[in-house]
């Protein structure tokens, strides 16, 4: 259990997280207050009905708001990368980090149920990475990310990539404070994935269609896949990439640069206005 805020993290472990630091997120802010909607007749029963009307995710959303505030003060573009296991997320990420590392600050938060293998792959590129192991947990939540941030400074005025647990269902509902969810779908999966897992595609602003170098060997219908994605999320941006051959990756780098620029512009406006 955390000695500062009393949070029990269950099976979650964050490497480098020793819990001897202050938290940037507040744990007891702004909760709704249920009003007594009805009271049973006196003497009949001591029980009463409380009308609560609280969003189940309100706790997570408070942490996410605190994270978002931190990101904005530090001028960080934060992306929550989501996909099924095996979509090529980590390969795509290591290629991206290698390409951009001399150009802008970057850091990575890696979410997996077990092992630090992915964080090691990231660190091999020279970029700082913090691994969160969720144990049996199937997604990252904003509270875990808040803790991971305490040991992470490298992405100020740069890009923080949060590689979520490989899962197309659960991470959809949990806001981490990111600017955008980016969903990665590989062409070795079915083109109907956006219809099968609509919540994730609805939550994403950008879809990276990965492993396009394999298209000649597959029956994957790219146009149909994009149509399905846009049926779920009209206006979702789609980029076709191959993290192995590098094809299409320049458009992704350009999207990253432009998104980071808009974060930096908001930061300088905030500084000028202060």
């Amino acid at each position, binding site marked *: 259990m955390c000695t500062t805020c009393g949070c029990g993290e269950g099976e979650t472990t964050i490497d480098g997280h020793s819990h001897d630091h202050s938290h940037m997120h507040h744990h*007891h802010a702004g*909760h709704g*207050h*249920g009003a007594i*909607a009805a009271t049973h007749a006196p003497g009949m029963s*001591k*029980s*009463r*009905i*409380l*009308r*609560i*009307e*609280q*969003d*189940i*995710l*309100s*706790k*997570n959303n408070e942490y996410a708001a605190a994270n978002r505030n931190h990101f904005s003060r530090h001028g960080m573009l934060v992306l929550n990368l989501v996909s099924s296991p095996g979509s090529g997320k980590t390969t795509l990420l290591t290629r991206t980090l290698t390409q951009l590392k001399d150009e802008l600050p970057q850091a990575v938060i890696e979410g997996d149920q077990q092992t630090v293998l992915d964080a090691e792959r990231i660190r091999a590129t020279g970029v700082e990475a913090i691994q969160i192991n969720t144990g*049996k*947990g*199937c*997604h990252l*939540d904003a509270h875990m990310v808040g803790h991971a941030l305490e040991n992470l400074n490298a992405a100020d005025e740069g890009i923080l990539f949060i590689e979520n647990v490989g899962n197309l*269902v*659960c991470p*959809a*509902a*949990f806001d981490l404070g990111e600017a955008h969810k980016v969903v990665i779908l590989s062409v070795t999966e079915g083109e109907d994935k956006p*219809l099968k897992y*609509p*919540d994730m595609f*609805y939550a994403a602003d950008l879809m990276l269609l990965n492993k396009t170098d394999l298209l000649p060997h597959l029956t994957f219908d790219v146009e149909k896949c994009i149509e*399905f994605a846009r*049926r*779920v999320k*009209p206006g979702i941006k789609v980029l076709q990439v191959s993290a192995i051959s590098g094809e299409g990756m320049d458009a992704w780098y350009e999207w990253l640069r432009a998104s980071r620029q808009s974060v930096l512009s908001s930061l300088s406006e905030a500084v000028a206005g202060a």
Partner: protein
Amino acid sequence: MHEMSLCEGVVQLIEEQAKTQGFTKVSTVWLEIGALAGVETEAMHFSFTAVARGTVVDSAKLEVIDVAGMANCPACSQCIPVSARFDVCSECGHYPLDIIAGEEMRIKELEVQ
């Protein structure tokens, strides 16, 4: 199986309510869960029992109120039932629709002692 996390959130919120509203035991929890919220009711019941152990909601009854998915069609202005986010308008075939109900994930009421 993010229902386990959702139930942890539910218990955490209720424990805070217990402090501010001064109750020590909860006998019934009513949740509103929308058809489009991506939540398995069965999994909620299973997780709730596990997560509630040793808290103010220990052995409380969980009642899940299902909220049907509803949408407005921007083309024909009809209000229609939907079962998925990408449903097309049953009246005119248009999509996308504006979802107006079915995304709820809310603690509605508690019966407390």
